[in-house]
């Protein structure tokens, strides 16, 4: 916000025109948006990228887990990055792709949902939230064509219901509902293989956490851009569970135990491949 816009008070006449923060900012202050710039021709310098997100449904909700590594080419740019965020009380989103833009899109999406809730006095439906996220990813398409793509995965439960639902997106904002489980990012092929074999219908929350962590460990094993659990720094994946009680981050104590179990088993079995 520059000096002359800072004092600008939203006009009374446009009040009530829209409940969308994205629409409001696009009209009044487009420079604040993470996307929508026309980039000059030329090659982009390397930027940090986030990688693997695994998401799966379980009995009573849905879960999302992300590793902690951001890479810039073959270099590790960050070991602590978080790629899974609560979107609001009943939904979470994870992002893969250009980290800088993705994190801003997450921030924008969080404000968008809260803004709607405050203006309207009610929550958006889960489908409504999924569609808004699609619109934001579509708005980022020009940037994606220049190499700055963001691919999210969205999960949540409808308030008052206890069935978890999963949505994936392509760079054009296309929205697809996924059943059972889904994964995005460079390690997703490996995570997906693991999820396919480990996911079972009717799992409880604890079983789902174990499956998600193991899927990420498998992805980290085969994809250099995905970080495995870091036993030295005590870095565990970021895991969020959404039930009808709301979205909750799984504590690091629980994750340490789950990681310990998987690592111990693989050590005892002396697995090679």
């Amino acid at each position, binding site marked *: 916000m520059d000096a002359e816009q800072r004092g600008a008070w939203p006009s009374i006449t446009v*009040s009530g025109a829209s409940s969308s923060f994205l629409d409001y*900012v696009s009209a009044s202050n487009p420079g604040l948006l993470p996307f929508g710039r026309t980039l000059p021709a030329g090659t982009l310098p390397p930027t940090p990228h986030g990688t693997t997100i695994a998401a799966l449904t379980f009995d009573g909700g849905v879960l999302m887990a992300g590793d902690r590594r951001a890479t810039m080419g073959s270099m590790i740019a960050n070991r602590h990055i978080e790629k899974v965020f609560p979107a609001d009380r009943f939904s979470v989103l994870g992002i893969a792709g250009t980290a800088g833009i993705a994190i801003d899109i997450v921030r924008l999406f969080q404000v968008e949902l809260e803004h709607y809730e405050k203006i309207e*006095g009610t929550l958006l439906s889960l489908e409504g939230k999924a569609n808004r996220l699609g619109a934001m990813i579509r708005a980022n398409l020009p940037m994606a064509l220049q190499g700055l793509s963001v691919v999210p995965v969205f999960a949540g439960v409808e308030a008052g219901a206890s069935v978890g639902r999963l949505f994936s997106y392509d760079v054009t904002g296309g929205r697809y509902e996924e059943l059972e489980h889904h994964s995005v990012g460079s390690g997703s092929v490996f995570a997906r293989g693991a999820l396919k074999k480990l996911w079972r219908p009717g799992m409880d929350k604890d079983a789902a956490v174990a499956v998600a962590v193991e899927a990420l460990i498998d992805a980290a094993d085969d994809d250099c851009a995905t970080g495995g659990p870091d036993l030295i720094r005590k870095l565990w994946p970021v895991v969020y569970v959404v039930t009808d009680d709301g979205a909750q981050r799984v504590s690091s104590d629980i994750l340490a135990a789950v990681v310990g179990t998987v690592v111990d088993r693989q050590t005892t079995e002396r697995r090679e491949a």
Partner: protein
Amino acid sequence: MSQQFYVSPEQMMKDRADFARKGIARGRSVVVLSYRDGIALVAENPSATLHKIGEIYDRIAFAAVGKYNEFESLRQAGVRYADVRGYSYDRSDVSARGLASVYAQSLGTVFTAEQKPFEVELAVAEVGAIQAQDHIFRLTFDGSIADESGYLAMGGNAELVQGQLRDLWQVGAGLEQALAWAVAALQKPRQDIAGAGGGPGADGLGAGNLEVAVLERNGHEVRGTHRAFKRLAPAEVEKILSSQGKA
């Protein structure tokens, strides 16, 4: 061809102020008061959906009396202002003082420049880490702004309600106590009317015609959210009010 009569600026402002005051006095009152664990906002409001009290931002709430469409548009503009500011700087950079001063600007401009002034009175409350850091701002139709300490009443019979609060309010009360004070203060004008005709207030204020919300001081630790605003359902209000009666 009609000739415009000369009206002195003093007279014009006085007329406008009288007009706005009349509009506000028709409405029912709203009370905002600070207590040990937060700030309570209590309105006499029989409607369950047309709110007089609303959430603006993490630790900031809004209460209003007067014309619904006018204060609703101000509430929405406040939410937009706060969200844009929090998004472009940081959530901690949104303050009640900043919001109150833009409300004052906006109301002042409308009062002097528009066809008719807004018939509204607003309160902007921000809950602090301790009770001494709570802020309650009062904004009137002409854009004047006042920093109230501890409690505030506005709307019809505001002086009477405010006077009652002045007698009751003390630092460090719990929520039950604060709600009891708020209800007692809101009931005061009714009792006076009923008292003149004999007997206590015939239609007492119950949970059904109260709109109650709180800004929780430690909402982050209790509910794990950065949003301190919480609307209390009528059943909850009923429970709190009756527990006070037994104590």
